[in-house]
């Protein structure tokens, strides 16, 4: 299956946006690239950008591969994406408010009831529970793939604790350092204002009872978490405290942090801990990462959690398949961003089709993430396909299937030189009480193995700088 190439389309003709990059690739001696790549490597290692991979005992810190060839998005392409992202996130917030409140979408038959009520991500504690400013998804990472010159699909909505934005920011810093001449030739929209946008968003979300100068903190599971670097990076850029569960305590439904000058009240918690672990009194009792009583303070309206508790329900891939209907229902508009055509295995006809076409399809667990627990039909062994066939028959409602998309490719440095590799894009959309903010671009992830469609860093993916050209 031929894939659309970001640089040369389907027919090998260089697209305008890439013309200067192509010349640069052609005219720069290979030794020069080798030097620059090793400089980038040194730079990343020294500033400590590393990620940990679960289940990899050997090294708790590994470097995420960075590719120096940028991925380019034109101004007009971005303006469509930007509108589509805002629309989608608006709908997501209205949807969550609705299913934890009046449930109009269920009454209107937009989405089957059991998909919500029997959803592991649907949090019973949040039913009829108001949240500050009626907003749930404050920080969203929407994964987008491209299949041809005009078509972008949303692959998944990450409405819990999307990560990767530090790579977006650091990749740009490294590129600015290594290739200043390229930036002189291109008008690349900046991303460096993301931390300011994030801080403004978080401050706007403080409970109405908070002081004018709300105390915002970032709650991390700690330095052994795979995204710890990002947590500390963001706390630093935002100028807020990076706290662990043990730094916080709750008294009389108010959250405090322990400081050298005694307890200090906390108003907004940008938490990078999953719902299940956030409060041992409310959820998993064995969690040592969370803060006992936090949910009590949250329900009393004394602290804002971003994202809200219970947003996982919209990360569900079966719920995802209803996003076009959800967008129409709440915004009254046609969805600007398309969904990948999705077979819901819970529906008997769809299941039959999926079982008959397993070698061509991608099968995903409805609540999986990070590229774990999925089957890529065309690349799977017979044994893997049979394992999934059994899983599908036993628990069809646990899976969805999608056609294997020919994700667009982008020229990338590999051992043999420059070769096309599949990419996706994760833009970050911020929603505050004062509006939506979205910096142009996002994180481009690249599958470094030839032909691979899995871009996740935990599965050997790398990243690239993403350029939105200011037309």
């Amino acid at each position, binding site marked *: 299956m031929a894939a659309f190439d970001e640089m040369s389309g389907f027919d090998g003709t260089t697209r305008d946006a890439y013309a200067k990059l192509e010349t640069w690739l052609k005219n720069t001696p290979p030794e020069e690239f080798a030097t620059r790549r090793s400089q980038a490597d040194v730079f990343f290692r020294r500033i400590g950008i590393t990620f940990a991979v679960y289940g990899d005992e050997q090294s708790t810190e590994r470097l995420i591969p960075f590719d120096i060839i940028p991925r380019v998005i034109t101004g007009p392409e971005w303006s469509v994406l930007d509108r589509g992202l805002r629309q989608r996130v608006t709908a997501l917030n209205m949807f969550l408010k609705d299913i934890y409140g009046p449930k109009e979408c269920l009454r209107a038959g937009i989405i089957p009831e059991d998909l919500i009520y029997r959803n592991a991500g649907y949090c019973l504690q949040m039913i009829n529970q108001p949240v500050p400013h009626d907003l749930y998804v404050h920080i969203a990472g929407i994964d987008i793939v491209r299949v041809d010159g005009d078509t972008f699909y949303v692959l998944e909505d990450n409405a819990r604790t999307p990560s990767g934005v530090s790579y977006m920011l650091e990749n740009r810093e490294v590129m600015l350092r290594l290739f200043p001449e390229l930036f002189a030739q291109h008008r690349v929209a900046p991303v460096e204002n993301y931390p300011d946008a994030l801080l403004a968003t978080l401050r706007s979300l403080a409970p109405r009872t908070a002081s004018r100068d709300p105390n915002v903190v970032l709650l991390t599971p700690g330095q052994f978490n795979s995204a710890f670097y990002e947590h500390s990076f963001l706390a630093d850029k935002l100028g807020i405290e990076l706290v662990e569960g043990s730094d916080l305590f709750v008294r009389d439904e108010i959250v405090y942090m322990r400081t050298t*000058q005694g307890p200090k009240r906390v108003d907004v918690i940008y938490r990078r801990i999953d719902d299940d672990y956030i409060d041992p009194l409310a959820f998993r009792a064995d969690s040592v990462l969370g803060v006992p009583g936090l949910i009590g303070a949250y329900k009393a309206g004394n602290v804002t959690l971003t994202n809200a508790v219970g947003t996982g329900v919209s990360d569900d891939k079966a719920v995802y398949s209803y996003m076009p209907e959800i967008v129409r229902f709440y915004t009254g508009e046609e969805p600007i961003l398309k969904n990948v055509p999705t077979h819901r295995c819970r529906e008997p006809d769809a299941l039959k089709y999926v079982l008959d076409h397993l070698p061509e399809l991608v099968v995903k667990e409805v609540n999986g993430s990070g590229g774990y627990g999925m089957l890529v039909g065309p690349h799977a062994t017979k044994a893997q396909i049979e394992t999934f066939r059994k899983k599908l028959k036993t628990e069809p409602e646990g899976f969805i299937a999608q056609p294997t998309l020919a994700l667009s490719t982008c020229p990338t440095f590999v051992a043999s030189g420059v070769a096309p590799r599949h990419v996706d894009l994760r833009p970050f959309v911020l929603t505050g009480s004062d509006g939506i903010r979205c910096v142009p671009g996002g994180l481009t992830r690249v599958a470094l193995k030839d032909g691979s469609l899995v871009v996740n860093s935990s599965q050997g993916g790398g990243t690239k700088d993403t350029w939105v050209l200011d037309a």
Partner: protein
Amino acid sequence: MLSRTADSLYWVSRYVERAEYLARILEATTRLSNLPSSYGGAASEWESCVKTAGCEELFEQHHQTANEANVHDFLCFSPENPSSIRNCIEIARANARAVRTALTYEMWDALNSAWLELKKYDGRKLTRDDFGRFIEFVKTLSLTFDGSAYRTMLRSDAYWFSRLGVYVERADNTARILDVKYHVLLPETERVGGSLDYFQWTTILREVSALTAYHWVYRESIKPWLVADLLIFNRQMPRSFASCYENISRFLDALGETYGRQGPSQRMARKTLSTLANRKMGDIYDNGLHEFITEFIDDNNRLGSTISEQYLV
């Protein structure tokens, strides 16, 4: 600031300081043990080195006798020794990583680069030349880290906690050297060793990087009571008890002023500082040098716990 952040800053500095201290005593001992025995060179110096490092019990659990090879390994690399130089650097770096945002980029870079370089050293395969390079590497780490802190940190509570870590650790380290070697520093009337001790005295001075400083301060040949005076009372000498407490007191006062509240740690530090200001070597010898040193070590430990209770938990 968060108590945990303050705690980590304090311990990062303590561990870096401790790593450098271990490097200095190893360097001085290596030099002393290589002297001909008629000049005081003796294998027993390695035992004394382990004592000075404060880990003799643990060492004895793993080794019957102390020699150059096993002491080098134990104090530098051994996983069995929680205070080996390698562990100090690893713990310092883990603490630094947990509070990465409270450090300046330069401080983080100093520590992280050293941590990356540490992987190159494999204790069991080091030649004497390599060992020398390793010691230099550790000393450079502490100079770079300390210099970065001095040159780049905001003068706020984060800086003061980090400085407190340096000086509380340093006071303890200097006191440990004296605790092990006090018997060669007795006044003339009580001395037994004769000129053999000369190299012990210079070793002590080397252990605190003060051999040259001694001559600048006293302008005479090395006398044991002056060595003791330099290490205990001399405020000009950056590793003396007096200098450490001048700094500890200064940074605790800065905290107290900024936070608008004094506490037990401020009072304790001030008391020790005034003792050091008002006493002379003569009194110390009269009441027992060893007793004085042990008491100082205990007081210093108590101050450490008091700082911890007052600010770090």
